Structures are given as C-alpha cells and as structure tokens.
C-alpha cells in the first residue's frame, strides 16, 4: 500500500484540536505508541532509507516494512507493508534470531482523528513539541490545510527520525519518564 502524508511541526495542540473538531473530524482517542526499529548488523535497511518496525499501538501489535520515500515536493510517499501480529515479544525474538538488531526505541503519545478519507494524528514525543501528521489522498490533504490555518509551505515530508534529529534530540531513544 502507498502511504501519502505530511507533517506540520510545532503545533498548538488545543488550537489544532479545536479546528479539527469544528470541521467535523472524529476524535478516536489517545494511545501510547511504542515503536522499535530493526536493522541487520551491516545497517543495510537504514542505509537504503527503509524501515522495519515493530510497534505497539494501545493493545495492538503491528509489524511493518516501509520502503524508500518517492520523490515529491511536499509529500512523503512510501510503500507500506503492514500486518498485525499476536505478540510483540515473540515477533521480536524471531527477528533477533534472524540476525536483526534493535536500532531504535521510540515512545510517543498519539491522538487520532478521522475526517473524510484523511487520517490525522497529533504525535507527542517526550523531547520535542507536538506535531501534526496528515495522511490520505493528496487533494484532500491540500484542501484541509487552509481550513486549519496552514499552507503547504508550513508542512514538511520528514520522517519522525529526521524530525527528532532536527530538534537535536536523540532520534533512537525516546522514553517518557
């Protein structure tokens, strides 16, 4: 599946939440998301700008491979292959047996909204300000932006990894105290 998304950094959570709800977005709740990224010892997954991720979202465990992002001016467009797994721990043990290592451990709080075909998320990592992630068809993303007070110029197509780096915080370890 193709995933198309962009981010708006450093948002005011109450303001954006109010605007989204006023537009009729449905709030789906806030969950703790714990993600571990894996790589081989030669770091070839990271070197080819791909991601192998095992993630706990609330009670669900997801296993996901993300390909290299396609070129696009404003959007991050990546191939995403994802399946749910019954147990995070068993899956992690299998990955370690295959010679994969844990590359990063990232915790965040995610508040999710749905509006039309858009999945809208407010992500809060421990060490950086909250940001907004909007995923869905490009046209719908573009038409939502002005309604919540932004233009494409205010957005970026960085991955979480790069966002963390841009703030100069540890991009491989984010833990709530």
């Amino acid at each position: 599946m193709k995933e198309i998304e962009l981010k708006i950094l450093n948002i005011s959570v109450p303001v954006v939440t109010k605007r989204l709800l006023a537009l009729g977005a449905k709030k789906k709740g806030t969950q703790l998301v714990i993600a571990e990224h894996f790589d081989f010892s030669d770091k070839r997954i990271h070197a080819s700008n791909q991601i192998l991720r095992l993630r706990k979202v609330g009670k669900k465990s997801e296993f996901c491979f993300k390909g290299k992002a396609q070129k696009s001016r404003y959007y991050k467009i990546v191939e995403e292959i994802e399946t749910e797994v019954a147990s995070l721990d068993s899956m992690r043990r299998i990955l370690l047996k295959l010679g994969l290592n844990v590359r990063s451990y990232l915790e965040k709080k995610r508040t999710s909204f749905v509006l039309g075909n858009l999945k809208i998320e407010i992500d809060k990592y421990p060490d950086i300000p909250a940001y907004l992630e909007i995923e869905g068809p490009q046209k719908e993303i573009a038409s939502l932006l002005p309604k919540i007070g932004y233009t494409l110029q205010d957005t970026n197509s960085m991955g979480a990894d790069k966002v963390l780096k841009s703030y100069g915080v540890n991009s491989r370890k984010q833990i709530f105290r």
Partner: protein
Amino acid sequence: MQEIELKILDINVRQMTRRLKKLGAKQTQRALFKAESFDFPDRSLQHRDSYLRIRQEGKGTVLTFKGRRTKSKYFQQRTELECTVSDYQTMKKILLKLGMRLDMHHEKKRTSFVLGGVHFDMDEYPTIPPFVEIEGSQGAIKGVLARLGYTLKQTTKMTADQVLLGYGKNPRNQRFKK
C-alpha cells in the same frame, strides 16, 4: 520454547485415530496446512540448522522460527519461536523485502489429537505415506508410546524434510493436485 518430538512413519490414519480415541485422546483439528520457508541468499539459516516458515493452519497464520537441533538419541529437540500473524501474504512480502528467498512450499493435511499434555499430529503429505508426530516432554512421550504399543526403536527423530528425502521425494515442493 523448547520443542521435543519424534515421529512414527507409515501409519494408518484411521487405525491410529481409533487407538488414540480409545486411550481418551481428544481431536483438536483437521485442516489443510500450507507452509513456505524462507532463507537468506547466503543460506545462513540453513547453515545454522535453523529455519523460518509461514504457515496457513486452517484459518490461522503462524510465523515460526526453529533453531538448531540439540543432540538426542531418539528425540528431535530444538528451540521453537512462534507468532500468530494476521495476514500470510503481507508477512511473506515483508520477508522478501528483507532480502529473504522462498526455500520450499509444503502442503499437508493435519489431524491433531491431544492426550495428557502430549500432542499428536497425523500428517498426510501428497506423495508419501502418512506419519504421526508426537510432541511433549520426553517422559510423557515415552509413556504414550507404550500405551499405543510402540517402542522407541520404531520411532524416528527425522524432520519432515528428511522423511521426504528418505522416500526419494522432493522436500522443496509438496503440493496436492488441484
């Protein structure tokens, strides 16, 4: 988890079913199993006597890693790690994206029984006579063997691949005719 098991080859499924039921064993499933195993291009899993497989077990899908076999005269003993996954094809795609290659494709009909902590899986492959795999603790396996009228000498610790090879069949490809 440590898996301990052995096999009795060339069984009669109906007869074995009758004997198991007589001993009070409970049937837990009869389903078509489809498995594919994967390895890296350098065959690093095979070189470590390990393998990784995805298996469709009736309606469920399970990803399994099996580690190196430990020495034992009669039993096949190895680490087994399993994880249920929601979608077979998606898991397969991810493994291929990681650079793994498809190593084999197996289909079989499996009928399973459980008796006092011992699991019996009667496996019917397309090209060889059925066999039963008995899994549990060594003591429990020995106990049920005697009750079934078998001795350890009549069993084997071969893997399914080795059994197929023993019959001169292709261990890389076992499919039922459509």
